[in-house]
Structure formats: structure tokens, C-alpha cells
């Protein structure tokens, strides 16, 4: 028997889960206006159920009260009876495939933003502001406490009435319940503050009310933190005491543990551990709490692989493994594990594109899977085409080209993939050279293995030209030729004169890093800071200059803290708000002339090397060479593309020698990895 622990059922209260793999509660940002799950929401979860998981807990931070705003991040709203119908649709969809579904319920207290919806005055035990969300809040009064407890009970009843399998009460991430627990936010002197027993009172009363509302047989869980990592916060030992106390009340059926507090920029980055962190960094906190409770324990955070999950279960550290981001990357992960197709799993690499979008209030998307949360239009499993078998020639084996080749091959076509370099990967190969970001290569590794498995004719080291492409007698040509470093945009940067080099030169190790280096990053994405880290971690002095408001401004809320940890410990100097005007030589030094965005004042830096990160410019020579010869003049019809419909040109029979020409990814204009993959998927799924 493979993975005996992973596939051993577990019973929570009266609820039996078919295996130990859980998609834990996370904010999806998919709910329809009013906070109601619609088709997108339900299909997103249904796909995981189809994929074999045991339990999904949806609706991360779904508020139970109207003074806990949810609309700015499109969360589920449990404060209204309108929620019952959509939740029952969700429950039915999940149960059809044998999976169980619960929802997280919470009151965010101060952890929100007051501006929105009803413009409520946020409540918190002692009126202390929450820094990350700029959550100004008032001190909660007893009447409000009573009302919120009642709201929890009403919400739980709604969840039960909808036919959901259970409810998880959040006391993690500094929501209202753990705002009461934490000495960091509770300075009350009444029955709800002071001693630990007093600080736990609110939570216990919430759970009692919930239990009373749903009865003894309905599954109720609690999610909590394992260590806030703050001097004035809850430490592991105190949280163990809380866990033990809470479990011994008999009110809850499981505890889910999250490592790290979440009310500062730095701690929040731990909660969904990015690739820089070691695997399962906080499992020791979960195990610590498990050692004092007698009910099952759930834990997520960087458990990404079946072997790893099995080992964690076997060691007895946890009873249920959360593999949440793993399900975003591949909702069919469980079936693939079960069927011995582990090599076909698109494994989460911890790039955190998902959560970094969520913190901007954008819908959660996976960097490497464009079908996730687009189940209504984008297939996770590409069906064979019932139409004619075509010859598809793809140029370029970066993410866009790999996805195009993969999807076309899955459609049953005859695919040739040309790549100029000696291996697949494109720009991702450079991205994975950055310290602590080696795992970016995992995105490519999957494509590499899949394109091999599908028997695609991959030709490396060939700079395909027009003649070579036409010699293949293609029906469809997909150009995924990517871009090149856009460092010639400003001639005064002196690239042509050798005064400045590109981030590509550095990361590809074509140019050795200098001792004192100024990096000019006009993009503020991962590449600029990554280059700075690459150079600084080799013992050099680095100043990172950007015209943006802060360095690495466009990398997202869980990634910039990781970068900033490196930035300050490596002594990289952040210089935002400056443009690079020009570079000139003076002796053996390069002089960079920078100009303040707001004062126009000019400064100079004397350095050994100037490195420029300015995004990419499309490689489109081939496109212009082929455009006029192609039947569709290289045009992608965006009306049908955006409507996820097949390109009309595909249904028009081609004459001998005719072919269709499409472009995807950076060779049109600069997008990110997700953009590149999405371009290919939406186009090629109908080939």
C-alpha cells in the first residue's frame, strides 16, 4: 500500500473524511457582490473535489457580522440568510464527488479597513490599531460582544442549514477571538482581559453559542496560531495552554494550527510560507499543540508533496495535512498521488503569486496554472480534439511556448517545439538563479517532464528561422519567442558603450558582479531585487535605485518582506524615487547620474558597475517575417479569445501550404509567467 497514512480515513465528530488531505481556508476573492459564492466559486472547489481531496474548508475569513467588512476582498458573507442557497449549491457539488466541505467563520475585529461597505467603526478589545491593514478600531463594548457572539451562532446555523459538513471558527491571524487572547491587543481590565482565562472568555462563549446553535453532532473546528513571534504576543507555550483548554471544553472537534502571527508585514509573510522558507517550517508548532490535545489536528504551510505529507503524518505530528496552494497549482493532486502519477503533478513552488494578488484585493490566481478558478472556461484536463489532427510548430520553450506545446499535444496534435537554448525554461531559468528563489525552476521542471511524456518533438539549440518553420509544413505556428532585456531604451544609460550591463547579464553569469554596484530597477518586480540580492550575497556593496515609491514595490505583500529581510541583512541600500538619467566613465569608476522624481535634483554615484533592469522588449523578427504569409495575418481575434471561444480561423479549411500564425507571451508585450501561460492555454485549448 502506498501512502498508507495519507489515504487512511479520519472521522471528525460524525464526519468521515476519505483521506487526510485538506484544502484549508483561504481568501479566494471570488465571491459575487453581496459576498455570495457564484459559479466560479463553486466550480473552483468542485474541481478539488473531483481531484480527490478529503476536505475543503472554503471562505477564509468569512465574517459573521456586518461590522466586519468583506467586500473589498470579495469574501463570503455569513451575516445574511442569503448565503444559505449558494452554500447549499456548493455543498451539493462537493458531495457529488465524495469530498467534504466546511467554511471558515470569523469576525475580523480590527483586522480590516473601515472604508468600504457600511463604513463601520471596527471593534477590538482595547482599541489598538492594526498596522498591516491600517485598521483603526474602537474598544469593543459588552453589548457588541453579545451581538457578535449571537452573530457567530446565527452564521453557524446558516452553514448547517445549507448542508455544509462543518464550520471552522477562526482564532488565527489575529482575528477578533485571538485579538482577545493576545496581550498585544488586549489590555482590558474587565472579565474579558487580564488573566488568560479572562482573555479566552470571548472565544469560549463564541464556541458555546455555536455549539448550542448546531447541536452536538455537527463538526466544529477552530483555527489558531502556534506562535505569534512577537515579544508582546502569544508564544508557543501559552498557545499550547489555550489549545488544551479549548479542546477540553469539548466544544470543538478539531484544531487547525498556523505558524506565525500576521499583524505586521514581516510576520504575515510567514503565514503562506514563500519559497525562501524551508519546507513545513512551522510543523513543530503544530506538533507541539498536538501533544497537549486529544482531538485531531490539522496543519498547512508548505506541505507540497505526497512523500513529505506522508512523512509528517507518519511521524504523528499532525492528523490532517493542508495542501492548499498545492491544490491551486493542481486541483487533481490527490488523484495523481493515488494513481501513482506523482510525476504528473504540477507542484506548488511557493511563488505566492496567489496570495500576493489576494493582498491587493485581486482574485487569487496560480502563477503556473491558468485553469485554476477559471474552470468554467479553462480545462484542467485537456480533452483530445475531435477535429483534424494538425501539425503545430511552437517556437520558444519558455513558459508560453511550453504551455502551447503541451496543450496542443494533449489535444492530439503533432507538435514540434523549437528552442534556441540547449534546454527549456526561457526567462524562468534566470529567475531561478536568484538566491532563495531556486524553486522557480520547479515551474519549468513540470513542463519539461510533461512535454517529454507527451512525446513532443523538442529541438534544442536551434534558432528556428522562417525556412525551417515552413519546412515543417505547419498547420499552425505559435510564436513564443519571448523578449530580450530592454536596456537600450535610453541611450544615455551607456549600454552600447559598455557603461552599464543588464540584470540578464548578471543572472546568466555572463558578466561577473562588481564590488560596488548600483542597480537601476525601473520595474520593481522580482528581477530587480533578485539581481541586487544575487550581487550582494556574493559579498558586494549594492544600492538599488528605482523611480517607484519603494524598492520591489510590485512583488506583493508576502514577497517584499522576504526581500526586505535580505535587503537589510545584506546591507543593500534602497533608494526609491530616483530616475537614472545617464552613466559616464571617470577613471575606473562609472558615474551614475540619478534624478529625484519629486525635486528633480540630480545626484551622482561613483560605482564599479551599473546594472539595469528595465523589463523586456519583444523578440518579434520571426513574426514580421511570417505575418504576411499566414492565412490569418498573424491576428488573434480577441473577441473570441477573451470569450474563451475557439478562434474562427480554426474552422476554415487551410489550403495546401497555408498556415495560421499566433503569438503568445512576452513576444507580444511583456507579461508575467501567469500571463504567458494563460495566453497559450486560452488559445491552444481549441486547436
Amino acid at each position, binding site marked *: 500500500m502506498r501512502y498508507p497514512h495519507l489515504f487512511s480515513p479520519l472521522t471528525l465528530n460524525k464526519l468521515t473524511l476519505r483521506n487526510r488531505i485538506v484544502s484549508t481556508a483561504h481568501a479566494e476573492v471570488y465571491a459575487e457582490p453581496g459576498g455570495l459564492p457564484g459559479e466560479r466559486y463553486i466550480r473552483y472547489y468542485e474541481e478539488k473535489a473531483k481531484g480527490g481531496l478529503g476536505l475543503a474548508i472554503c471562505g477564509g475569513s468569512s465574517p459573521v457580522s456586518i461590522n466586519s467588512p468583506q467586500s473589498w476582498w470579495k469574501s463570503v458573507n455569513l451575516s445574511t440568510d442569503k448565503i444559505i442557497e449558494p452554500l447549499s449549491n456548493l455543498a451539493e457539488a462537493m458531495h457529488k464527488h465524495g469530498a467534504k466541505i466546511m467554511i471558515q467563520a470569523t469576525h475580523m475585529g480590527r483586522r480590516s479597513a473601515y472604508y468600504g461597505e457600511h463604513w463601520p467603526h471596527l471593534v477590538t478589545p482595547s482599541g489598538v490599531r492594526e498596522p498591516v491593514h491600517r485598521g483603526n478600531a474602537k474598544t469593543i463594548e459588552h453589548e457588541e460582544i453579545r451581538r457578535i457572539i449571537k452573530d457567530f451562532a446565527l452564521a453557524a446555523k446558516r452553514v448547517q442549514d445549507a448542508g455544509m459538513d462543518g464550520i471552522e471558527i477562526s482564532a488565527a491571524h489575529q482575528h477578533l477571538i485571538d485579538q482577545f487572547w493576545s496581550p498585544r491587543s488586549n489590555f482590558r481590565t474587565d472579565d474579558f482581559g487580564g488573566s488568560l482565562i479572562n482573555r479566552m472568555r470571548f472565544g469560549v462563549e463564541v464556541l458555546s453559542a455555536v455549539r448550542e446553535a448546531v447541536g452536538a453532532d455537527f463538526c466544529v473546528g477552530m483555527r489558531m496560531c502556534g*506562535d*505569534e*513571534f*512577537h*515579544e508582546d*504576543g502569544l*508564544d*508557543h507555550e501559552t498557545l499550547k495552554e489555550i489549545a488544551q483548554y479549548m479542546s477540553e471544553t469539548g466544544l470543538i472537534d478539531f484544531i487547525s494550527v498556523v*505558524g*506565525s502571527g500576521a499583524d505586521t508585514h514581516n*510576520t504575515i509573510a*510567514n503565514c503562506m*510560507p514563500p519559497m*525562501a*522558507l*524551508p519546507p513545513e*517550517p*512551522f510543523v*513543530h*508548532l503544530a506538533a507541539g499543540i498536538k*501533544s497537549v490535545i486529544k482531538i485531531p489536528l490539522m496543519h498547512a504551510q508548505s506541505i507540497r508533496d505526497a512523500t513529505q505529507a506522508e512523512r509528517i503524518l507518519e*511521524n*504523528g*505530528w499532525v492528523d490532517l495535512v493542508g495542501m492548499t496552494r498545492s491544490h491551486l497549482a493542481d486541483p487533481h493532486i490527490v488523484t495523481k498521488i493515488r494513481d501513482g502519477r506523482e510525476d504528473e503533478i504540477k507542484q506548488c513552488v511557493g511563488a505566492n503569486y496567489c496570495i500576493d494578488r489576494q493582498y491587493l484585493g485581486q482574485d487569487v490566481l496560480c502563477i503556473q496554472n491558468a485553469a485554476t478558478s477559471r474552470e468554467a472556461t479553462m480545462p484542467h484536463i485537456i480533452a483530445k480534439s475531435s477535429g483534424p489532427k494538425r501539425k503545430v510548430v511552437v517556437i520558444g520553450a519558455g513558459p508560453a511556448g511550453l504551455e502551447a506545446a503541451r496543450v496542443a499535444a494533449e489535444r492530439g496534435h503533432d507538435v514540434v517545439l523549437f528552442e534556441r537554448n540547449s534546454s527549456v525554461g526561457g526567462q524562468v531559468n534566470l529567475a531561478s538563479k536568484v538566491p532563495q528563489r531556486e524553486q522557480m525552476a520547479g515551474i519549468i521542471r513540470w513542463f519539461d517532464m510533461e512535454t517529454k511524456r507527451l512525446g513532443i518533438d523538442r529541438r534544442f539549440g536551434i534558432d528556428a528561422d522562417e525556412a525551417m518553420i515552413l519546412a515543417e509544413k505547419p498547420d499552425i505556428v505559435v510564436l513564443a519567442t519571448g523578449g530580450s532585456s530592454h536596456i537600450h531604451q535610453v541611450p544615455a544609460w551607456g549600454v552600447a558603450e559598455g557603461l552599464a550591463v543588464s540584470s540578464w547579464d548578471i543572472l546568466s553569469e555572463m558578466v561577473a558582479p562588481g564590488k560596488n554596484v548600483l542597480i537601476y530597477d525601473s520595474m520593481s518586480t522580482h528581477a530587480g531585487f533578485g539581481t541586487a540580492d544575487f550581487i550582494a550575497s556574493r559579498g558586494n556593496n549594492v544600492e538599488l535605485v528605482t523611480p517607484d515609491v519603494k524598492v520591489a514595490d510590485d512583488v506583493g505583500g508576502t514577497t517584499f518582506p522576504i526581500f526586505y529581510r535580505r535587503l537589510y541583512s545584506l546591507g543593500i541600500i534602497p533608494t526609491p524615487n530616483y530616475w537614472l538619467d545617464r552613466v559616464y566613465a571617470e577613471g575606473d569608476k562609472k558615474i551614475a547620474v540619478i534624478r529625484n522624481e519629486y525635486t528633480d535634483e540630480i545626484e551622482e554615484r561613483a560605482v564599479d558597475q551599473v546594472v539595469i533592469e528595465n523589463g523586456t522588449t519583444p523578440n518579434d523578427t520571426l513574426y514580421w517575417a511570417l505575418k504576411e504569409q499566414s492565412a490569418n495575418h498573424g491576428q488573434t481575434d480577441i473577441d473570441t479569445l477573451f470569450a474563451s471561444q475557439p478562434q474562427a480561423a480554426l474552422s476554415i479549411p487551410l489550403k495546401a501550404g497555408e498556415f495560421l500564425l499566433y503569438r503568445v507571451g512576452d513576444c507580444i508585450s511583456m507579461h508575467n509567467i501567469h500571463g504567458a501561460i494563460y495566453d497559450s492555454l486560452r488559445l491552444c485549448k481549441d486547436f
Partner: protein
Amino acid sequence: MSIKKIAALVSAGRHPVSGEARHCRNDSLAMSIGLTLTKKINAISTNASITNQTSLRVMHAGNPDNAALKDYLALGAKHIDVIALTAECNIIDSLANELTNTDLILTGSRAENGQDSGLVPYLLAEKLGFSLVANVLEVKLIPEGLEVLQFLPKGKRRSIIVQLPAVVIVHPLAPVELRHAYAQQVMGKVSQQQSLPFKPVTDQDNSLQWQKQSTLRKPIKLKARENKSGHARMLSATVSENKGGAVVIDGDSVEKAQVILRYLREHRLINF
């Protein structure tokens, strides 16, 4: 070296998954080694009369009706002597009393019932004044006594000559093929020994008072209480980097190879 009496001690095992009574594999290995050794001795001493032959006595302390004993019969024990245990008698005294004149006692490394402490053979050897050697893979009778091959971890083995009489504890990896045959089970016999009156164990305090829990859990590791700052706790969980040791960048490949060799020698990781 002449050797007349060999004994194998066998205990009642249980299957870890089903809980079914069965032989304890460790003890079966010991018994099998005993059977083979007995056969070998008798084959060499051709002139020995039947009565003068070396015999293997298979002994069990416990319940003669235990289903596990059938396994030992099937595995080749022609006869099992069972010493019934009562609350008053001491297993070591009982066994020692039976085994006084034995030349060699073979037993497995750890039982699958009771405390499984692995102490019984030690206590027995102490009581009888026998030599004792543990983790044995193979035994060979030589003029000086018994030559045993001992298991050591990391692919190491060691040969030892042991003075008889001796207690030999067999290692679970002993290269013995166990053959379970139903016909032997049917033919074998289990008989209960006449229990001798033993003096009750008086010093009950002399053994630990164990409280058994049937719900299994994983052990909790002992950790020092630490007063680390919150940030330090975060770092210890999130930073996997170490400082690193010596780094050799300069020099040609041969010099670097020599640095490696020196390191390996210095830390005794190689023997050349």
C-alpha cells in the same frame, strides 16, 4: 569443544497490525540457529550414540495453550517445554532452575509481549554465571568455545570468541531462513514442566511500576526551555541557512582533492 545441551528460549509474539498471537520472529531466528547448530554437531560426531547426541531444548515461560507455540512447532521445534508462570514466581529463577546444566542458551533480542525490555537474557546470564553476547548473526562451534559474528550498525560486523556456557542473543538480521511447515506443527508436542516451588518475589519495589495506555501516540521530545525573543523564534523556524564551514576557492583540482583527503583523514572518515 564438546557441547551437550543447547536451549532456545521462545516467547509469545503478536502481530503488530492484527494483534494475532504468533511466534516472535527474533526468537524463531534463535531457535533456528539452535536447530542448525545441533544438527551440525550431531552430524560431525558420527560415533555418538543416540542417547549421547546433543539436543536442543526449546523452552517457553508462559501459557502452554498460547497459539503462538504452534508457530514454533511448525518452524521445527519437535518439543516445547513450557514453564507455567504464576503471579508469585520469578521468570528468571524459574528459567535458571531449568537451565543450570545447559551449555548454550539462544534467544531473540526483544520480545513482543510484556515489557519487551530485552533484559531477560542478561538477568539469566547473571543468575547462571554464563557469558553473554548480544546482536549475534551467526554462531560456530570451535575448539576454544563459540565463535560468533556480531552485528554493528553502518555495515560493520565483528567476530568474537565466547567462553561456554553462554547466553547468545540473536540479532533480527541473522541470515536464517524460517520454514513454516504445517506437518511439523501437527507432529510437535508442547508439554508443561512440573512447576517447582519458588519463593515468592519479595522485593516488589525492585521493578518499575508501569502504567500502560492502549492509545498509542508519538513520543514528545525533551526540549530545553528557551527564552528566545519572538523574532529569534521566527528566525529559527524560517531561516535554514547555516554559517558554513571552510570554503576552498583557489588552487587547482589536485590541490582541492588533497584538501578533501586531508579532511577525511583528520576526521577518521576513511582508513587509508
